[in-house]
């Protein structure tokens, strides 16, 4: 067997392991990955949506607030997957599994590849499920087939980027609880300080510039444009560029942390 086929085989084994984990923890995952975004959707649409929708004015282009909201909720669904990924990686580092495989002839990168692969899978499945619920709750997208494909592409790229970043966070935090806490900026803070719920223009001057130009806004704006059938412009490319930057940074950071943590 060549090194490459062994690497592929080891990564597939780690992928299998992580899929088994996800199945065993399915109930927990459904709550954190699907139920939480759905509750956010309900809270913001039914409870806050009246006022928020009015406040949008021309931005909404006559559509109900739910159409503005759902693309943001989809982005948050992906971001919500960061916690479990960081936790899983951290558990392997602190629980002796990494040491065990390091005394075996296992390809070095396989473990992280498995974590990231299944993390992306989980994020995609969760996003599909939340989309389904949103449709039931009255979300009416105006997207063509090509638009939908672009949406899937951006969601996948964003998932891939955040998965590497979360893996890195899981590697550098010293405990499982720390790993979870350290992903909160990704799953809560950055989504709120973006165009997820309201346009960046409506925010106080102090955060307006940041909110308008940060990567999560680029992702939400591109999804929103694609799903509501409004002009996409170059937001989709901007979003993909951000995803590439985050993925690369996360990858480099994770690899360095893995080398350091297992020396």
């Amino acid at each position, binding site marked *: *067997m060549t090194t490459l086929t*062994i690497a592929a*085989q*080891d990564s597939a*084994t780690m992928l*299998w*392991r992580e899929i*088994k*984990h996800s199945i*065993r*923890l399915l109930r927990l995952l459904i709550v954190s990955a699907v139920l939480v975004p759905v509750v956010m959707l309900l809270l913001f649409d039914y409870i806050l949506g009246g006022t928020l929708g009015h406040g949008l004015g021309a931005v909404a282009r006559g559509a109900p607030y739910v159409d503005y909201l759902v693309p943001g909720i989809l982005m948050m669904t992906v971001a919500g997957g960061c916690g479990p990924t960081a936790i899983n990686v951290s558990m392997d580092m602190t*629980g*002796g*599994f990494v*040491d*065990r*495989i*390091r*005394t*075996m*002839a*296992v390809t070095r990168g396989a473990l992280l590849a498995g974590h990231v692969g299944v993390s992306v899978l989980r994020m995609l499945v969760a996003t599909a499920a939340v989309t389904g619920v949103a449709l039931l709750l009255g979300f009416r997208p105006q997207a063509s087939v090509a638009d939908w494909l672009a949406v899937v592409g951006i969601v996948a790229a964003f998932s891939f980027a955040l998965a590497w970043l979360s893996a890195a966070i899981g590697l550098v935090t010293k405990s499982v609880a720390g790993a979870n806490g350290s992903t909160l900026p990704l799953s809560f803070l950055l989504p709120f300080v973006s165009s997820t719920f309201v346009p960046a223009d409506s925010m106080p001057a102090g955060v307006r510039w940041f909110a308008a130009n940060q990567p999560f806004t680029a992702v939400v704006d591109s999804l929103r444009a694609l799903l509501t059938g409004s002009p996409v412009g170059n937001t989709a490319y901007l979003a993909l560029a951000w995803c590439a930057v985050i993925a690369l940074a996360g990858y480099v950071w994770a690899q360095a942390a893995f080398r350091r943590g297992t*020396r």
Partner: protein
Amino acid sequence: MTNLKTRTAVSVNGLRKTYGEKVVLDGVDLSIGEGEVFALLGPNGAGKTTIVRILSTLIPADARTASVMGHDLRREAAAVRNVIGVTGQFSAVDNWLTGEENLLLMGRLLHLPATELRTRAAQLLELFDLVDVARQTPATYSGGMKRRLDIAMTLMGRPRLIFLDEPTTGLDPRSRHTMWLLIRDLRAEGITILLTTQYLEEADQLADRIAVLDRGHIVAEGTPEELKRRVPGAHIRLRFADVASLDEAARELREGTRDDEKLVLRVPNDGGIRSLREVLARLGDDVAVEGLSIHTPDLDDVFFALTGNASKEKSQ
């Protein structure tokens, strides 16, 4: 293949490991023959786990020479990994996979052929008495079952040398005994075993040779018999109601040291049923014995005999 036992499985000279200023291992020499069971005996903080982690390629260290199964530890780490199996001090089973899946995971990571994968897993489940719980996750296992699964995982790849870091710590006497039987079976198969333990009795029961480790130094090495000869022997303590009984017992037994204040007679005795009966028979029914306790040499005795210190961890 004809003369396996004469080859060396582990050979290290002048092994040193420091963490910052702290010297954890200070010139350790080890030579373990193939097929041998070698016990590293030492208290908390002696450096047992550090030695296991170095020899299993997990952490680097300085040494004049260090080879495992004929491969240089530093330059041929990959070759070393192919022939060793490691069960660490702390459980490294996957708690979200079933017992069987844990074994399959190891087999896949060892690149076993698909046909061998399942037969080997089934074989080990049988051998380690885990068939009934094979489809449950270790969350439902007892400590002993978890430990057995941990070791079974180590054996998936048929390693020729295995490291067992404190395999019985935390197990009840019965599970400990089961573990001893398993380790003897492995030895019978010709697997070389380096195990660490804090219990003299365990090293005595299992090992062909023992090295006593104290704060990074090997303070004694030899067969269990050689070591025990250097340690005060086993004895019993007989307690009496009055000095008259003590006098009479001392007269009857004609050996042992007496403590008149505590009314205790200390008599050399291995604590076996036969030798206990002998003593009691010699005392007869007339001597009133208040109490009897059996004392077997433990780690503290070994350390006291070898270093003049008790085995309590020294904090530097």
